[in-house]
């Protein structure tokens, strides 16, 4: 039988392997990006997702083709998790002409209609309002889809976050608000900036369920999103999930991170890491053999080598294309 047991029986072995592959792909992609950036080959502001993989992958494992994911500026991980072409993702981060957004978006604005990935943006709370609109469109157009809006602990302090929660609730929109609380809004601690310390508790004020989960535990994220997504699909309205997690790198590449306690990242890498937790669980429960997981690691490593070689070799956009895509008639 191809079904996992006990705690994780909601997912087939194939789904679990896919989740592991997704998390490993993001990890190796981001670790490599860190190295390439330090080497000077990557332009602009780049925000890495390493450490937070269980969050995006746990969300996307619950989504269908009809669903819409609203991404944040920390965009690489969720884009890969949602199934955007990883070659095109890398080329976009390298600002190449055949990147995911033809070199007009870059690292922070990955967007892919084909895979239901919409509107990565740097107005950090904005995605929640956009997600309300996407949910309204899904409902009015009867697509059967829901919207999931990712937002960080920093974005959760923008007024638009609260306005959108209120709107989602009074209009009973099929939207899941996924707060990725990674402990730092840029260089400011979530514990300092968030009154009461808990974002999920705000949900009660807006008459929607609010839960907190360990964002490094794929299974915890998966279960919370499953419940929220089912509620949205059934027409019962929005939910909020706060997934507590840590990023392994700075707010952006080049961030010296002098605000972080010494040893914090090492501690998370050693004892809380999502890939380690996942491996322990599936190996202990006899669901997946170590060799199968190791084989995936090897395959992903080779894939990422090809992805980077391809991106670095790709052509830049040409001057002749400069004024394209500003208006609908600019082709």
């Amino acid at each position, binding site marked *: 039988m191809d079904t996992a047991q006990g705690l994780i029986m909601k997912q087939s072995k194939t789904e679990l392997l896919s989740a592991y592959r997704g998390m490993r792909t993001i990890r190796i992609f981001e670790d490599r990006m860190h190295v390439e950036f330090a080497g000077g080959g990557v332009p602009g502001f780049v925000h890495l997702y390493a450490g937070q993989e269980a969050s995006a992958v746990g969300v996307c494992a619950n989504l269908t083709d009809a669903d819409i994911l609203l991404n944040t500026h920390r965009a690489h991980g969720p884009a890969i998790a949602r199934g955007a072409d990883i070659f095109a993702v890398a080329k976009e981060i390298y600002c190449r002409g055949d990147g995911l957004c033809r070199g007009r978006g870059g690292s922070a604005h990955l*967007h892919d209609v084909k895979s239901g990935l919409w509107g990565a943006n740097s107005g950090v709370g904005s995605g929640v309002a956009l997600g309300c609109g996407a949910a309204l469109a899904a409902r009015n157009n009867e697509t059967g889809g829901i919207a999931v809006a990712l937002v960080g602990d920093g974005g959760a302090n923008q007024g638009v976050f609260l306005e959108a929660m209120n709107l989602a609730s009074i209009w009973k929109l099929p939207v899941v608000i996924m707060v990725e609380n990674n402990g730092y809004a840029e260089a400011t601690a979530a514990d300092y900036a968030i009154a009461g310390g808990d974002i999920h508790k705000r949900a009660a004020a807006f008459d929607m369920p609010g839960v907190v989960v360990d964002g490094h535990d794929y299974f915890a994220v998966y279960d919370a999103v499953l419940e929220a997504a089912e509620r949205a699909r059934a027409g019962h309205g929005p939910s909020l999930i706060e997934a507590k997690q840590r990023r392994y790198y700075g707010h952006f590449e080049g961030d010296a991170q002098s605000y972080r306690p010494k040893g914090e990242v090492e501690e998370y890498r050693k004892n809380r890491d999502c890939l380690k937790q996942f491996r322990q669980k599936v190996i202990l429960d006899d669901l997946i053999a170590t060799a199968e997981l190791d084989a995936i690691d090897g395959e992903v490593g080779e894939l990422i080598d090809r992805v980077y070689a391809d991106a670095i070799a790709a052509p830049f956009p040409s001057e002749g294309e400069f004024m*394209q*895509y500003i*208006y*609908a008639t600019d082709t």
Partner: protein
Amino acid sequence: MPIKSYRQAINETLFQEMRRDERIVIMGEDIAGGAGTPGIEDAWGGPLGVTAGLVGEFGRGRVLDTPISESGFIGAAAGAALTGLRPVAELMFVDFLGVCFDMIYNQAAKFRYMFGGTGGAPLVIRTTIGAGMRTGAQHSQSLYSIFTHVPGLKCVMPSSAYEAKGLLTQAIRDDDPVIFFEHKMLYDMSEDVPDESYTIPFGEANFAREGDDVTIVALSRMVHIAGQAAEALAKDGIECEIIDPRTTSPLDTDSIIESVEKTGRLVIVDEDTPRCSFATDVAALVADEAFGALKAPIKCVNAPHSPIPFAPELEDMYIPDAAKVEVAVRAALEASK
């Protein structure tokens, strides 16, 4: 042809377009009014009565009263536009667009570009401009220049009922985000408006009056102020050509240049404040592209660089009037004698 007011023309357009395309939803504060109250549905039909009756035909699923959450609902409108609806959002006064400016200039305006042409926001934001209603400094501005400045947006200022119907129909059918600026003081102005739908293309100016002596470029209500001045000047044998660009983005630069090449004199009438304004934009355009045709310095008639006063006597001084336009036209003629 039936006579309709500017307000009726806009209302009729919304009915006709919502019947034509089910993806159109309208949303805004009190756009129907009465939501959740024991009173009647459609209590207000919009703060200025422009959307009356729509909720009766199209229901609350397509006519959405919003809380006073401009970022929230303009953001939702942008997100809905990105993913399959064609929202027409109303934000009752342009003065309040600052509350949600991020959703307009960082989000809706940039989607198409940032996403490499793979997504866009067919969104209309209807709002009002204009002084004269004694509504004070935070309900009376004409802030179209701020939006004209932003690539990706289109900016539309109908000057009459006929123009309003054709331009709003075009705005709703357009695939880009459009800010549609309705002038409060024009709502009750009426003229012949066809019953059937029609569009007026963006970026094509209307020659509201033809003349050989001076070109006057004016927008929205200022087209009428310019018209009053032109009537008075015609009695002295001075013939003004009045160009209503209809849209500041895109801007019909060809028509402006063509007219100035004929008259050699340019007066711009703009209800907005003067610095970095529509008036200075057109003045710069002509100085750059038609300098050789000018027989006199370009004259701008703007509101002063001041907030809008509440005292009626002061507010009347604030708004460009026909007398100020006449002075500018005569000054242009005097300078070129």
